[in-house]
């Protein structure tokens, strides 16, 4: 369950970054259109809320929230490292992580 949360949080942060000028340029060499900015921001918040669910169902409210907060840090650290050293690989990595969500949830 921790893995599902980690994957969802990772995707959420990538979505947040997609909606930001600087980070969009790092990934795609262009600035995001206003439409892309809006959609990715909404998507990011949705994924963030969604990422809380597997943790809380697996570990209960208090310890689930603790897990969630910690995993957000872990996900954000990996996004920062990718933006620093392999920004163009982020879309491909995200696709793999997206597959990981249902797989880890079913395991």
């Amino acid at each position, binding site marked *: 369950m921790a893995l599902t949360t980690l994957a969802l949080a990772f995707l959420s942060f990538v979505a947040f970054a997609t909606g930001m000028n600087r980070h969009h340029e790092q990934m795609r060499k262009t600035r995001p259109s206003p439409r892309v900015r809006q959609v990715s921001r909404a998507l990011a918040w949705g994924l963030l809320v969604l990422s809380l669910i597997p943790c809380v169902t697996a570990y*209960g409210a*208090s310890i689930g929230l*603790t897990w969630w*907060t910690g995993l957000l*840090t872990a996900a954000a650290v990996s996004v920062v490292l990718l*933006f620093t050293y392999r920004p163009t690989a982020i879309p491909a990595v995200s696709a793999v992580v997206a597959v990981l969500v249902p797989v880890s949830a079913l395991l």
Partner: protein
Amino acid sequence: MKANFRQSMSWLHTWAGLLLGWLLFAVFLTGTIAYFRQEVTLWMQPELHGSVPSPRAAELGLAKLAEVAPDASSWTVNLPADRNETLRVSWREAASAERDAGRGGGRGEGLILDASTGEVLKPRATAGGNFLYRFHFELHAMPRAWARTLVGIATLVMFIAIISGIITHRRFFMDFFTFRPSKGQRSWLDAHNVTAVLALPFHMMITYSGLLLVAANLLPWSSQVIFGDNPRAAMAAGRAAEQKEAEALKAELAKLGGGTSVPIPQLMAEAEREWGQPVSRITVSEPGKPGSIVELLPTRNDSLILESGSGGLGGVKLAFVAKTGERLSPPEPRARSFVGGLQASLGSLHRARFASVRLRWVFFLAGVCGTLMIATGLVLWSVKRAEKRKGARGTFGHRLVDHLNVGAVAGLCVAVAAYFWANRLLPVDLASRGDREIQVFFAVWALTCLHPLARPLRSAWLEQLGAAGLLFVAIPVLNALTTDSHLGVTIPAGKWLIAGFDIVAFVTGLAMLHAARKVWRRRQPAAPVASRPSPSAPPAAAVAVES
């Protein structure tokens, strides 16, 4: 007005951070390692590494107790669990129990056993992970109350630095995921921001809860208000009342007669079904005699609000009448206010006592972020001033901070590595061996604080980062040369508890060697420029590398 407010916050952040930053770095570094206190201690006692958990552990432990202490007033069996692979038994003799009753219990005697053979193991003496844990809030060789007060003040300053830091660095939220390496001051600021913001919930939690844990030392009269003038007497009275109740229960149960009809493993199975997690401790009072009670403790709590049991185990125990296997009703839960519950939750969050090994890794990662945040903040102070002076020689104060940073940051890493080396290299039967390990730690740290005063700044960083890196990278090799539980054995056997230490040490060493390499690279082109105005000038800007 707004700019003014931000400026004053920036001033506060800079000076509050610098003043206690060195102490806070030490507190964070040792505190982060302390999340794996038991695992570190286990690594430091290689004589225990052969023990493998087995389902027979409970029986082996009880059999050993029946053999060595048949007349004891109580037995305790600590079973192997996910953080400890040995079996530990202890007992209290009837006579000593009576003697200790007035003082609230002595230690009794104990043995460490191999969990699958029941053989008695004799580990070497070590200060273990416990020293690093104690150091992180009580320092060393200083009256406890002073040390706690000092750490408490540092914690308060940390809290101030976090709040003022959020206001100072608020621009960070605009490019949230940005880290630009090898760009001088810019990189240090990025690294400081990233490690601060990404683990911000952890930093707030750990600082605030840490503050609560030492609050009694900062407000020395508060406990007097709550517990009266003589808190010890109040506690003793509480204990006496509890004991009276226990005696009454014992007398009641004694009527049933001695002996056991229900085997303990069967009680354990019942408890495990109910908890959904393994039993970690069995306590038998008056074993084999009339009135005997069996108590079982879970491995960990499954909610933050629960107080943990002794040794950080779960707090929800189940008690059975040994004679009949009948369950005793649990004591009435104490009514607790919202604030009381909040305090318990923050206390358990700080200590991570509820955390499984996997969750412990998450806490460890956040702790590493906090340690890096303080280190980068300290270096940033130096780098910023060095870039402003553009190669000119700094004032005495600047140079002092620049050079002390080396010993406080890199030097402490060298000292921690040396502490682990001492554990393997000191003779196994050395008298007061644990103290010797600690002496090695402080001797090395003292040397690393003096060394930068005699060296150009860049060389001091290079040499100390290099030394720490080499010492850490070589720990798996040292372990292979001095013990039989090196990576070549522990990985194939799946003993990750022990292999984990070697791997983390190796990775830490690599990171430090990488940092040292960055300092080395910067040294080449900048050296002639720096040597022109003054041959001994500390070119602080050159330290502007990514860690």
